[in-house]
């Protein structure tokens, strides 16, 4: 098995927003998004929606990586997400990484953190529930 699974970590939405796969850490993808007009809310700060989009994308990427590692094929459907905004996102690159808290047969619970310069001081966290459906056909 490869060091990390081949996954399609980024949706068309995520790519359009400017999110990229930054690195792998213990089999979990870390995503990043550069500060750009596409993520800007009030001047020189991240829009809450953009930060939320990064968190959500990182959550899905973590889940896809784990499913690929287990050789499971599934269509992912969002159930819900709760985002906690802890600090203003400043005009620099943001990173996010998800951690799977529980992986069941039909649903997964994922915790995600986003940070900028200091990994130990997250700017936002999220908890997501995702439904995994049997692939069609």
């Amino acid at each position, binding site marked *: 098995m490869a060091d990390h699974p081949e996954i399609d970590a980024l949706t*068309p*939405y995520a790519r*359009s927003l400017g999110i990229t796969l930054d690195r792998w850490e213990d089999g979990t993808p870390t995503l990043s998004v550069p500060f750009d007009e596409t*993520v800007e809310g009030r001047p020189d700060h991240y829009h*809450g*929606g953009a930060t939320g989009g990064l968190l*959500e994308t990182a959550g899905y990427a973590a889940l896809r990586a784990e499913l690929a590692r287990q050789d499971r094929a599934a269509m992912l459907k969002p159930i819900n997400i709760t985002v906690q*905004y802890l600090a203003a996102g400043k005009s620099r690159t943001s990173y996010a990484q998800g951690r799977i808290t529980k992986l069941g047969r039909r649903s997964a619970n994922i915790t995600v953190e986003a940070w900028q310069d200091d990994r130990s001081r997250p700017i936002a966290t999220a908890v997501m529930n995702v439904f995994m459906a049997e692939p069609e056909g």
Partner: protein
Amino acid sequence: MSEQERKFDPAKATSFFTGRGHSGWLGLKYSDHGDDWVELELPWREDLLGEEGQRVLASGPILSLMDMASGMAIWRAMDEFTAIATLDLRVDYVRPAREGASVFGRSQCYRVTRSAAFVRGLAHDGDADDPVAHIQAVFMKIAPTARL
């Protein structure tokens, strides 16, 4: 309060917010408003799709749409444009949005305190009685003296 006495006009304010930045990139548009609620429209876009192989809008843009509509609902309810920041936002995605449809985000500010504003809302794709998502959020007012 009559419309003339109101200072914050969501219809006019929308173009200010959507002319630039994240909201501008999403292409958000004004749709409707009331005394304490605002509805914005997110037009269908091919490059905002979620899961590969499915013609379904990603959930991220809905989160952004609701965050923006919620902020505007708060300014509308306070009738004042002051700095606010999202503290907590929960989105329940109850069904996928229809392919090719605009998604409308309607948020209502039901309570404002000295330091916080509480909102709830829904996203729909044409029929508000059949939502695609429900949301609940809390925003903090940022004191003018606070360093940003």
